[in-house]
């Protein structure tokens, strides 16, 4: 049997030269990960983790790497401003750090925030552990190519005990370029013991383009640390965006993650959390609202590995037109993680005959004294509720919008930053399908 031809996507990504670092161990990791990417190829739908996300169309496309004009693209800074967010800001355009758009002066004490490219020029040793992490699963193609090719990204550290009040804003801009681009970014985020941080990760588009972007974030919370993270994904409607966020929570650490998936053509987010310390707690909230021909796939995986850990997850999906929403919410309670408390709810609205929702909540329990529950539904707006609103004079479209907004609202309810919460609610409303 002859070797099948390498898909154009794979070939074009392998064409790009590895970013030079001048650091032996890092160059070594990058070479290994590139080799693993070449050998492993792209995941297909026979793999459980990619069952509902086919990459056939993407695999046939070519992407150029490296944007010579990354430093000069005009970006409307007004578009980066979010209500309730006025702290330090780090901006990347097509994967490259842009000092002119960032706001790094007067960083509060206890906060280290710099682009990865700069951090590697100094003492790279503290980054070694995070950057050496190997992607071993068969479906890890994008994590591998990211590890090999991401030359820039975020390094963020909060010193033990430091409480950073101003939210830190990380912005990834996809800007229109002469060709379809592929770019990769990597974040290493660490909160010391008892540290506190609010973080917002933003994906925005400047112009229409069809880029492929990958982002891998490693987020470590030490004992008693507290993180509020909000992800606002509003990438260009033609973009393919593949992200992986890996959280590790030590004892009594508490992370809250809010995710809004609005933009992109093919969007995949692997949100993986390990609760490794006793009493750690994770709350995840998210909405995905694909319309048109969007495909949005969220893969949530939470692993309870220590005593008395807790997680709660509330996710809502709304699919219309010919869009497809995919959700997997896997909760594993490892042997010995007694006293764990896990709950997950994923409710979905399917609004058009051409749309599809695939959801798979999973529970895997290997411990005792566990309280675990999950629920998932796929359905429509309540006819009676619609009737109630219409009988009070609301036009159908408005009644539907109101109910859909209320359906998604549970996800935003416990977002502490009020101006931001209101803004996100407005964005959700604007995204609602006109029916």
């Amino acid at each position, binding site marked *: 049997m002859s070797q099948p031809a390498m898909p154009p996507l794979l070939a074009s990504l392998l064409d790009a030269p590895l970013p030079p670092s001048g650091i032996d161990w890092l160059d070594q990791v990058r070479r290994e990960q590139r080799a693993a990417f070449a050998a492993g190829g792209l995941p297909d739908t026979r793999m459980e983790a990619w069952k509902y996300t086919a990459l056939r169309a993407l695999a046939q496309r070519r992407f150029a790497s490296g944007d010579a004009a990354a430093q000069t693209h005009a970006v409307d800074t007004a578009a980066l401003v979010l209500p309730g967010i006025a702290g330090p800001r780090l901006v990347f355009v097509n994967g490259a750090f842009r000092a002119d758009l960032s706001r790094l002066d007067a960083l509060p004490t206890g906060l280290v925030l710099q682009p990865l490219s700069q951090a590697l020029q100094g003492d790279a040793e503290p980054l070694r552990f995070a950057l050496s992490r190997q992607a071993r699963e068969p479906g890890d193609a994008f994590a591998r190519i990211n590890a090999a090719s991401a030359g820039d990204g975020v390094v963020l550290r909060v010193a033990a005990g430091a409480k950073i009040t101003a939210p830190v804003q990380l912005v990834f801009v996809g800007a229109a370029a002469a060709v379809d681009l592929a770019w990769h970014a990597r974040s290493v985020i660490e909160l010391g013991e008892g540290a506190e941080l609010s973080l917002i990760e933003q994906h925005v588009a400047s112009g229409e383009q069809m880029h492929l972007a990958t982002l891998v974030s490693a987020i470590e919370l030490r004992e008693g640390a507290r993180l509020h993270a909000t992800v606002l994904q509003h990438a260009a409607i033609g973009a393919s965006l593949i992200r992986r966020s890996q959280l590790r929570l030590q004892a009594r650490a508490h992370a809250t993650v809010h995710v809004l998936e609005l933009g992109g053509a093919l969007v995949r987010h692997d949100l993986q959390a390990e609760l490794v310390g006793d009493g750690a707690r994770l709350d995840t909230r998210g909405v995905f609202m694909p319309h048109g021909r969007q495909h949005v796939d969220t893969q949530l995986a939470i692993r309870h590995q220590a005593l008395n850990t807790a997680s709660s997850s509330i996710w809502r999906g709304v699919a219309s037109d010919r869009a497809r929403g995919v959700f997997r919410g896997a909760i594993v309670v490892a042997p010995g993680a007694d006293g764990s408390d896990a709950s997950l709810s994923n409710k979905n609205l399917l*609004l058009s005959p051409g749309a599809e929702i695939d*959801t798979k909540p999973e*529970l895997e329990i290997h411990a*005792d004294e*566990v309280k675990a*529950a999950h*629920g*998932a*539904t*796929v359905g429509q707006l309540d006819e009676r509720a619609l009737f109630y609103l219409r009988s009070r004079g609301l036009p159908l479209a408005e009644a539907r919008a109101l109910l859909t907004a209320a359906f998604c609202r549970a996800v935003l309810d416990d977002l502490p930053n009020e101006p931001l919460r209101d803004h996100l609610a407005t964005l959700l409303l604007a995204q609602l399908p006109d029916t």
Partner: protein
Amino acid sequence: MNQTMTSDSSSALRDNAEVAEALGRGYAAGFVTDIEMTSLPPGLSEDIIRQLSAIKREPQWMTQWRLDAYRHWLTMPTPDWARLKIDPIDYQALSYYAAPKAGLKSLDEVDPKLLETYEKLGVPLHERARLAGVAVDAVFDSVSVGTTFRKELAAAGVLFCSMSEAIREYPALVQQYLGSVVPTGDNFFAALNSAVFSDGSFVFIPKGVRCPMELSTYFRINAQNTGQFERTLIVAEEGSHVSYLEGCTAPKRDENQLHAAVVELVALERAQIKYSTVQNWYPGDENGVGGIYNFVTKRGDCRGDDSKISWTQVETGSAITWKYPSCILRGDRSVGEFYSVALTHHHQQADTGTKMIHLGKHTKSKIVAKGISAGRSSNSYRGLVKMEKGADGARNHTQCDSLLIGKRCGAHTFPYMEVKNPSAIVEHEATTSKISDEQMFYCRARGIREEDAVSMIVDGFCKQVFRELPMEFAVEAKKLLEVSLEGAVG
């Protein structure tokens, strides 16, 4: 979404002397019947299949059907997607046919030893059948040893016989329906079964007939180093109705034995089929040695409008259970149901659930799955609910609950929901919990022995499913749970 409280149960109770003693009891069906057997030599090849087909005096098309399945099977990889610990199976070491020696013409000629076996197992063969009012087809290793109540059933127009007989007597019916629900190449074990199945039951309920009694099959694996591959086909014509029961046991043996069955149900317009199973194959001992590998494909096809197929299963036996009784809801307004209790103890592994494929308009399905894990066992629910584009107004509700008894067992839930119709509604909820201290304390304070308290609580946990079983079966199922749970308390 439900949440169930759990809390600690007293560890002192684990040392209960009674419990330790009870460990010695257990599998009551574990005896061996010593009778003369005819069997094919171990190994699997086209020759063996031809021999098997010849012994059974099958027509040419059947032999060919088996050979096609076998050739397809050879190209298939062993499935590994279920996270089960399975020692590799040597398909060449198994014997694919074992039968009690003497050729049988009627039930009266059946070896008395064999009848004794069924007597011990409580199968109402012979006169006992009359009292119980259940028609039985009993399968001993590879062949059907006798079917009761033939005349009564024939008067109603119901055909109920062994599959071998059906192939000879009603070839047209068999040819029309066999493999129409589970095609020969459907999956690895279904392909293997299609190639080597030795017997099973055939039921045909003609148009408008309500089967006058409950039909039943009893399966028993007796011989060493044999696999049992039975094939059951039930066809219910327009407006007919049938309730079918299935029970299974096997002797205690140290090596694992393979059981790969295929069950096909076809329900035409307005027909109803109720299929109940109490599966009590030998589960292996407390160290996980021996036991049956139970790899079964069961599927029902609601072909006609307003038809209904209902699966009820109580799974307490087998070292490994791997089965997903499914419904294809093709006819408009057809209904699929799945009620399941799966209990695992010691080193047992169960991976079971259902698939509900909604194709027709206003189809409905209901899933109630209860998993109980004890010892070091692992118990998974794996299910799929699929709403295809044409399934307007289709509805599903799924409820999966797991009960953990002890610290070393696992309980898992893997539900898949795929929805392509915007007027369909799918709901799934699942909980995992353990028997709470409060419940135990309450019972113990009232003088109820710990073991009795546990079985009471477990019985309550399973009630929703037991209610669906025919009465005699419900009693048996309850007893089985009690026996299977012995020594699990703690």
